[in-house]
């Protein structure tokens, strides 16, 4: 018997010209929780997909329990005792829990035989690991935390000794995340090995025994968690000491530009996503909204931008009421001075098949200055695009190039240039630096501060707490669709973290 549950030797993988994994070595000891951290796009998910047989490595060896294994497909991984909980759950929504757990492990050609056995086994797993879930519930009707539990049960049902969790807390509320951590501890005491992938350092420090850091496709270090610090890991992840402080003057807020009152938003299933939210933003200040992803920030942003209808409440833009419950129209809002950098650049903010210059007018395409007679004035559009390319240093500087061919940072600059150069009154920005390279991050942060200094009211939503703290003049924390509290950027991370976890002002846990 080997000490090591997993050993990877020289794993190498390319997708076309993208070199996702570069000769990676990794050792995971048995019965431990092993964290793997890295920025978005560092190659963590690719590496784990190779381990699970979803992709095949171009080169390198995989050893499980000291034995070399050829993991050609997920079947081979399951046979080797590896289970995986994917970031996006691999569940069939209109199936029951039981059907989902049986899928692929049905025992025989006919279902009846397997069902009884599955029920018994499920009861045993529930008992051993405190993983209660109703086997006859339909997945689509379960909350996210329970759906994840079904994923874990699926892996254990297949006899997994090694459990890989890919960014498991991204969709969880703090309470659900805590529950997950307790389950993982329990699995560890039962002798299971857990590989935990995340880009959140706090989680690494909280539950892992060892941690490996990936950067740009390379494995750069492995540390005992007890012997490292958030600062060291952050430096390893990014490659150099990052300045999370952005230089800025104190804010000099003016008149109220955006006023939100008792805003309530429900999603298509009727679930309340934003619950009676009120706040004001004045000219010349940045208000940041912090919170775990999925606590209503996206819906709030989309509703203010007119992309989504509110159930009730009012929004006032520069003194004029917007019909957020009815026919709020994004193009009308733009004319009234609201600029919107959406969270989802690839699907909302840009049409990737369009040329750069076509994207440079998206949303403003009805502006008379882009028109000559009945037609669009392509020359004026291109000339303006060229000016923005120069001002924002967008590369390559070709307005006729397809947008899909620009890097993430340059794509984001295309959106920013479009929204900021319209001289808006109010700028709302979601996830400004998601999937953006380090150089562009500094540029984008500087532009946001400049907008504030020009007297714009800025609403900033980001799941990166560091970014919120570095840029905002005031911080609102969202939890379960409500504003859990307001803090200044000087507040400690722990204090804001408590609010993000739903502990409201006054110390009472909200629920």
């Amino acid at each position, binding site marked *: 018997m080997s000490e090591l549950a997993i050993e990877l030797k020289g794993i190498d993988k390319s997708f076309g010209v993208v070199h996702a994994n570069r000769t990676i070595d990794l050792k995971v000891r048995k019965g431990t929780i092993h964290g793997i951290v890295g920025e978005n796009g560092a190659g963590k*998910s690719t590496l784990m997909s190779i381990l699970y047989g979803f992709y095949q490595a171009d080169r390198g060896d995989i050893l499980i329990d000291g034995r070399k294994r050829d993991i050609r497909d*997920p079947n081979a991984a399951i046979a080797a005792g590896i289970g995986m909980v994917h970031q996006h759950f691999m569940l069939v*929504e209109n199936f029951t829990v039981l*059907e989902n757990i*049986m899928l*692929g492990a*049905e025992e025989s050609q006919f*279902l009846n035989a397997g069902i009884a056995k599955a029920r018994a086994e499920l009861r045993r797993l529930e008992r051993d690991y405190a993983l209660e879930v109703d086997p006859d519930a339909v997945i689509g009707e379960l909350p996210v935390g329970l759906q994840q539990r079904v994923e874990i049960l699926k892996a254990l049902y297949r006899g997994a000794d090694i459990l890989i969790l890919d960014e498991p807390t991204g969709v969880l509320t703090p309470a659900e995340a805590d529950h997950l951590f307790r389950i993982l501890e329990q699995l560890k005491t039962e002798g299971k090995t857990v590989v935990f992938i995340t880009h959140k350092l706090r989680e690494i420090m909280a539950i892992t025994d060892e941690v490996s850091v990936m950067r740009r496709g390379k494995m750069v270090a492995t540390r005992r968690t007890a012997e490292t610090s958030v600062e060291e890991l952050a430096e390893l992840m990014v490659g150099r000491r990052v300045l999370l402080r952005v230089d800025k003057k104190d804010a000099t807020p003016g008149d109220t530009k955006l006023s939100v009152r008792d805003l309530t938003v429900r999603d298509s299933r009727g679930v309340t996503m934003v619950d009676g939210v009120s706040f004001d933003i004045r000219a010349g200040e940045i208000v940041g909204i912090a919170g775990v992803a999925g606590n209503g920030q996206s819906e709030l942003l989309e509703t203010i931008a007119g992309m989504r209808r509110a159930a009730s409440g009012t929004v006032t833009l520069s003194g004029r009421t917007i019909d957020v419950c009815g026919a709020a129209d994004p193009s009308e809002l733009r004319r009234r001075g609201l600029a919107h950098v959406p969270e989802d650049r690839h699907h909302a903010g840009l049409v990737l098949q369009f040329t750069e210059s076509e994207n440079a007018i998206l949303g403003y395409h009805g502006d008379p200055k882009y028109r000559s007679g009945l037609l669009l004035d392509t020359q004026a559009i291109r000339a303006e695009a060229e000016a923005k390319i120069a001002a924002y240093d967008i590369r390559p500087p070709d307005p006729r190039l397809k947008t899909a061919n620009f890097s993430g940072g340059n794509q984001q600059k295309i959106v920013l240039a479009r929204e900021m150069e319209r001289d808006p009154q109010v700028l709302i920005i979601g996830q400004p630096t998601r999937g953006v390279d380090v150089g562009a991050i500094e540029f984008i942060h500087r532009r946001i501060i400049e907008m504030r200094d020009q007297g714009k009211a800025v609403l900033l939503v980001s799941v990166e707490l560091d970014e919120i703290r570095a840029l905002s003049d005031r911080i609102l924390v969202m939890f379960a669709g409500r504003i859990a509290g307001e803090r200044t950027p000087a507040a400690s991370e722990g204090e804001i973290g408590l609010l993000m976890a739903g502990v409201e002002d006054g110390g009472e846990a909200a629920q």
Partner: protein
Amino acid sequence: MDVFQVFIELAQSTIRVSTPLILAALAGLFTERAGVFDIGLEGKMLGAAFAAASVAYILQSATMGLLAGVLVSVLLSLVHGYASITQRGSQIVSGVAINFIVAGSTVILGEAWFRQGGRTPALSADGRFGTLALPFAETLRDVPVLGPLYSGLLSGHSLLTYLAFLMVPASWWVLYRTRFGLRLRAVGENPGAVDTAGISVIWLRYRAVICCGVLCGVAGAYLSLAANGGFTKGMTAGKGYIALAALIFAKWRPANVLFACLLFGFLDAFAIRYQSQAFPLIGKVPVQLMQALPYILTIILLAGFIGKAVPPKAGGIAYVKER
């Protein structure tokens, strides 16, 4: 003629007209529940009808004809599978293409082989599926009420008709009580779940497409070997599309498929029988309205005015592993 006898006769022709619809709609059920949309049911049926009639004529054997029909239909299914599963092409476009290729080639080949203007020669009794008399059908014929019901309605259909009606519970059982069915329904909703469970999405979808081919093959063979004594140009006459409409009308469920097909079959049988008869209150119903009614009903259902038809979630989308 008394009302009861009219009912029996209408019901009988409803069963006859519904048989190919049931088979074709169940064929569509298998492939669409697996996430591969198929508007090529029409073409597969037509191809099968032609192959079945040709082989049945040459070999003087209905069984061999049936096998040939199934074979051709499965081959066409595999073309659709290759285009939409392996090459990830548009499932709609592929289905449209197959319908045209078959519509053209059955006529060209039929004319080249038999020189009867796109028909196959009339089949002898050996080349056809005759009607089966159920046990005691003759003795019970004169029993009041039960007699006509049993001897006149239930008895006296071809083997393929009984097979079609049997396929409804059989399909239900396969889809809901077997491992294959569980996986098939899963792959139409979330192929990622199937893939990560260690099951090949591609092979599973190919098997679903083959099931579709087999059933369409039987449907086509029924048309040329049982309902008619040979193949005529374009003999499916839109039945593949009616079956598609029935499948949607049935919200992709086996038992509903039976009722939807019987309803559409009844409308057709009714239209043929009463095309020039006036009714009290409504007067003469134009036969064209009766013919269009299945499509109109399906559209009303699709529009959500009576219930809501929600297609399999992964339907129409080729599976690509995400990075």
